């Protein structure tokens, strides 16, 4: 651990805090339909788009209509992506002449990108044509992010509105998220990434003659345009197999900084939007404080763990000096070092991004456990774009419910009484997630089809399986990438898990939004638990940690914790 490392973390957080407020205020104006400085450019385009879609922008939807539109769109776009993958050999921009993608893999990938997961069972540079990457995959990076934002905004409206039947218009919210937020930032940031060396072309792979007279084939592609939205939309699906570790995706420390910043930018700004839309800015900050607390603890732990030398190596220099960053270098890139890799890994799993700039499978047992735990907590530490906020609001509802139980009063949340139906929807959300992870991970451990995927034996093998299903259910997409998941068992099982993790959780969320919108607002009384206090932040943080620990601690103790103890007793597998 170095002073420079800590300084990089502080700089990162300072820039994030500086940018999130203006963006959060801007998004509030965009989604409340107020005037913004961008209107002269985007308003005419927006109107034209509604005409082309056949959408009446004034028409509001109740939660069922909102959910139906979201599900139908997701279904249609999933089918289109599946078709593109299967037919890529008939489509343009396939300079390496890749054949169509096999069925199970095409299904897994279509589900993966539709759900904002971007789990990748394949090696992109030997599987996917440029057309498939642009039209099939990068497209979903935009859309799944916009859908996430739309659903979160729908939920916030449910909290903010009084005795209302509707929570907004799905098509309008999605279009605005794309046009006013995701696309303009992508264009600017994408070009900055190119200036750092992220490639952007449609050329066939370059054939080079190396200095030692070997032939090296260098993969190319339209990378920057996908890279930027992969991060900004917390998607995480790499253009190349090694994702943001690949020099063409993440060439410099500055590109690394920008990519990590892009992950947290919108989720952090949405806490400001939450405070503004509900007319209680203090609540937005209280939620932000909880996220910051959990983020800081995870980051420090990962940095500490990854800075440690491997206990069983001799004849190597693992010290941290001015000439090397030392520590655990397996699976990491020299230009990022331990600090740049630890920050990336923490942020990508706090959010539901899942991009990686180092291989999580080769992290120390404890470093790997923390990134896994980040996903297990539900990716609410800033979280995915939209999904992080609505996931967090579920825990907010649980927290005020528990606070209400403690004093024996009907709990209220920003003037809305939290009743049985609301808590049921919140619990549905909290229970579906571990259920699908633990049941399918257990099934994998009990079948040879599941066990065959393990590439690191011993307790680490269990962690590989656990990580795969956690990542899929949480729509994260990062992996302990050694696992051999391009099999029917994992492709189909994980594809199913991703759909459950996305849609079975979005629907109770929208139901909750609809139910909250219907309620009338009660004025705060002396017995109301204030949700903008530091006491609330502490309670919320505790609820998240207790629910997470009760659910997953047994599994973690058999995986990474056991591995750590055995490794430090000199045991290898």
């Amino acid at each position: 651990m170095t002073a420079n490392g800590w300084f990089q973390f502080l700089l990162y957080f300072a820039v994030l805090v500086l940018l999130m407020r203006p963006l959060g205020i801007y998004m509030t104006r965009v989604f409340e339909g107020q005037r913004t400085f961008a209107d002269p450019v985007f308003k005419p385009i927006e109107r034209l788009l509604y005409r082309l879609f056949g959408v009446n922008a004034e028409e509001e939807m109740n939660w069922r209509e909102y959910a139906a539109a979201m599900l139908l769109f997701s279904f249609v776009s999933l089918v289109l992506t599946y078709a593109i993958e299967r037919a890529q050999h008939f489509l343009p921009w396939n300079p390496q002449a890749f054949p169509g993608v096999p069925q199970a893999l095409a299904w897994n990938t279509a589900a993966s990108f539709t759900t904002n997961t971007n789990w990748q069972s394949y090696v992109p540079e030997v599987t996917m044509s440029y057309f498939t990457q642009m039209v099939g995959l990068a497209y979903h990076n935009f859309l799944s992010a916009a859908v996430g934002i739309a659903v979160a905004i729908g939920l916030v409206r449910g909290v903010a509105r009084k005795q209302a039947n509707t929570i907004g218009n799905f098509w309008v919210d999605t279009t605005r998220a794309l046009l006013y937020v995701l696309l303009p930032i992508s264009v600017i940031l994408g070009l900055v990434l190119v200036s750092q060396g992220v490639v952007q072309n449609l050329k066939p792979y370059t054939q080079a003659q190396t200095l030692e007279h070997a032939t090296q084939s260098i993969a190319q592609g339209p990378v920057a345009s996908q890279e930027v939205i992969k991060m900004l939309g917390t998607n995480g699906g790499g253009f190349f197999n090694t994702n943001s570790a690949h020099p063409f995706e993440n060439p410099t420390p500055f590109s690394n900084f920008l990519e990590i910043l892009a992950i947290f930018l919108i989720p952090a700004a949405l806490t400001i939007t939450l405070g503004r839309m509900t007319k209680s800015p203090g609540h937005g900050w209280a939620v932000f404080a909880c996220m910051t607390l959990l983020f800081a603890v995870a980051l420090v732990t990962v940095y500490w763990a990854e800075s440690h030398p491997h206990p069983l190596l001799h004849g190597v220099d693992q010290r941290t000096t001015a000439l090397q960053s030392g520590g655990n270098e397996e699976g990491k890139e020299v230009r990022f070092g331990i600090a740049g890799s630890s920050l990336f890994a923490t942020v990508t799993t706090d959010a539901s991004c899942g991009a990686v700039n180092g291989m999580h499978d080769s992290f120390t047992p404890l470093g790997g456990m923390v990134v896994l735990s980040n996903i297990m907590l539900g990716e609410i530490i800033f979280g995915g774009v939209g999904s992080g906020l609505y996931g967090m609001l579920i825990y907010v509802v649980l927290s005020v419910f528990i606070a209400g139980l403690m004093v024996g009063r009907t709990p209220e949340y920003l003037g809305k009484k939290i009743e049985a139906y609301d808590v049921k929807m919140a619990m549905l959300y909290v229970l579906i997630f571990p259920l699908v992870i633990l049941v399918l991970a257990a099934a994998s451990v009990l079948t040879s089809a599941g066990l065959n995927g393990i590439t690191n034996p011993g307790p680490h093998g269990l962690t590989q399986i656990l990580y795969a299903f956690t990542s899929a259910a949480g729509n994260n997409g990062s992996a302990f990438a050694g696992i051999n998941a391009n099999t029917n068992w994992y492709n189909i099982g994980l594809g199913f898990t991703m759909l459950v993790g996305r849609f079975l959780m979005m629907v109770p969320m929208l139901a909750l939004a609809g139910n909250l919108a219907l309620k009338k607002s009660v004025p705060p009384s002396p017995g109301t638990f204030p949700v903008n206090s530091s006491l609330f932040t502490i309670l919320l943080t505790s609820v998240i940690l207790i629910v997470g620990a009760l659910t997953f601690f047994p599994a973690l103790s058999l995986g990474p914790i056991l591995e750590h103890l055995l490794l430090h007793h000199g045991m290898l597998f």
Partner: protein
Amino acid sequence: MISTLKVAIRFTVITTILLGLAYPLAMTGVAHVLFRDKADGQLITRNGQVIGSAIIGQSFASDRYFHGRISAAGNGYDAANSSGSNLALSNKKLVDRINGDVANYEKTNPGQPVPIDLVTASGSGLDPDITPAAALYQVHRVAEARHMSDDAVRQLVMTHILGRQFGILGEPRVNVLQLNLALDEAAAK
């Protein structure tokens, strides 16, 4: 329901054309106007032949060249098949691999511990860089193989150390391909 489905289909088709085609193609065009070399991968050409990319590592086995990190990409530095080793720290294969490589370096640098990045696989398998420590560690071997003085080679390494970006970001590093090209140029003079 049917009308929503119709909107969903129109919405999908139109956004696909805009975000799946128009956006990446426009970005490609603009990138080529503004940053042509970067957009094409910073290819290095010698005598009309592309010899590699400035930011993609390649294999070096000869004692006359500085060596890069261990690569798990294909058969080593396969830039069309990037990969990390994905070995766990508790995997015996990892410790055996590192011990084997350490034994090899022991022959050229007896008694000197090997900088960790030289015997660990990079994340991408294409890491173009090594740490300054790893470059300085190899100075004596390269100088001997090229019949140069240690000082001359060390001097070359020192001029190729790339500091932190803006003095803050990332870690100091040495680009192996560019250092080796400079060695060849120094020899040609």
